Every structure is written in structure tokens, then in C-alpha cells.
């Protein structure tokens, strides 16, 4: 038997690793990878709570499916933006993309 706390601890650790990646990486694609890690941590939490607390309701799985859809759209739009920026400015470093910085 695996206690619920193991899943929650793992998902918290995964979320924090993803947060570090988002905050510390210079490359915009690496930042997107950190966001994917964080979304995965959220999904583990949703499914673990579904399984341990309310297995008779389906809400946890339904919202995990919706998180999948959001993650797919985010990756598609984010990578399209990065490739477009790379074409115009020849860089993918987040601190060089400062056209709108005031």
C-alpha cells in the first residue's frame, strides 16, 4: 500500500524542480520544459486525490484531461512564438527578448 503522502511529496518536488527551471534557465525552450514539468506535477496531484479521496466521482480524471489539452495548446503556441522570434532576432535567450521591456 502506497500512502497518499508519497504521491503528494513527489508531485511537490517535481513542481519545485520545474519552478527552478522556469526561473533559472536562459533559453526560452528550456523555460517551456520547466512549465511542462509543473503541469505534470499538477496532473499527478489531481489523479492521486481522485484515487485516494473520491474514487466514485470522476472529477479528478476529467480535469486531468483538460490539463492535457491546455498543455498541448501551450506547447504549440509557445514553440511557434519562439521560432518566430528566432527568425526575426536570431536569439532564443529570454533576456535578449526585450523589445517590449520599458
Amino acid at each position, binding site marked *: *500500500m*502506497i*500512502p*497518499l*503522502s*508519497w*504521491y*503528494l*511529496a*513527489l508531485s*511537490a*518536488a*517535481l*513542481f*519545485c*524542480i520545474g519552478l*527552478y*527551471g522556469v*526561473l*533559472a*534557465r*536562459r*533559453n526560452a*525552450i*528550456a523555460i517551456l520544459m*520547466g512549465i*511542462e*514539468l509543473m503541469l505534470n506535477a499538477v*496532473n*499527478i496531484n489531481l*489523479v492521486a486525490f481522485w*484515487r*485516494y*479521496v473520491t*474514487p*466514485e466521482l*470522476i472529477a479528478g480524471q*476529467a480535469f486531468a*484531461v*483538460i490539463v*492535457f489539452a*491546455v*498543455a*498541448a*495548446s501551450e*506547447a*504549440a*503556441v509557445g*514553440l*511557434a512564438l519562439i*521560432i*518566430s522570434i*528566432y*527568425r*526575426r532576432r*536570431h*536569439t*532564443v*535567450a529570454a*533576456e535578449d527578448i526585450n523589445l517590449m521591456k520599458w
Partner: protein
Amino acid sequence: MNPLQLVFLATGGLTLVAALMVVLSPNLIHAALWLILTLAGVAVLFVLLEAGFLAVVQVAVYIDAIAILIIVAVMLTQRAMRPQPQQANRAWPWAALGALLLFLGLAFLLVQVPGVSAGPAPLTASAEATLEELGKSLVDVNRYVIPFEVASVLLLAALIGAIVVAIPPIRGREGGGEG
């Protein structure tokens, strides 16, 4: 320590190590490959949680689509980062401190929640019945049809937006603004 716990510990350890390599690896292609390993570990966790459909979706959407998309994007843009091998920005100690503090805060909250050391509740429905229930609940007017429709509109908008954004700039106007 029963076999399930051993599987969980092995998978969880592998997932966390792979996730650390994703954020620390100096080579972005290696980071993307470690990301695939992390996503596969999460799929195994879904199987352990008896959510087989989500494990399949994890493989089909994350490993198959998103990871490949990321690898292609890395390959299209990698030349830009080659002169500067340093991948972390100047504020990385603060980022590490913030992430560590967040983890300690979450762990502190975790030990205070009642019932987190309990085992799973028994599953009342079979796997097929659960999957059928999931499909019905997503199109049921009284349940999750609104989030489902919002997600589909979001996917359509993302599809069109990605195409519009990634269209190459029109020749002769390069540097002059939007294509």
C-alpha cells in the same frame, strides 16, 4: 515494503533525477531526452494510480506530440545558443532558494493535513466502467461539458494561432514588423 512500494520508489526516484537533469543539463537536446524519461515516469505513476486511460494519453500527447515538438524546436534554434554555453541566468541562486522554500512550505503543509498516510479507497467500479464514466461526464450537460468545450475552443485557437505566428515574415519587409 511490498512490491508496489518498491515500484513507486524506483519510478519516483527516476522521475525526479530525470527532472533535475532537465533543468540542469547544459545541452538542450539532452534536456529534451531527459524530459521524455520524466514524462514516461509520470505515465507509470498514472498506471500505479489505476488511471490507465490517462497513462495512455500521457504517452500519446506528452511523449509523442509535445516532446517531439520541443526536440524539433531545439534543433531549429540551437545555433543561437552555441556561443554562450552558460544556460543558467545570473539569478539562479535566488531561483534555487525560492524553489527550495516552496518545497519546504509544501512539505510543512503536507504533514499537517489529516489522512495523508491513509491507503487508497477501494475502487467500486471496474476500469471499463470508470473510462465510460469519464467519457460521459465530459459531455454531460450537468457536469463538465463547459470545461470540455472551453478546452476544445482553446485547442482550435492555439492551432490557428500557432500557424499565424509561425508563418515566415514576408520578404522585403523583414525587420519592419509583423508579417
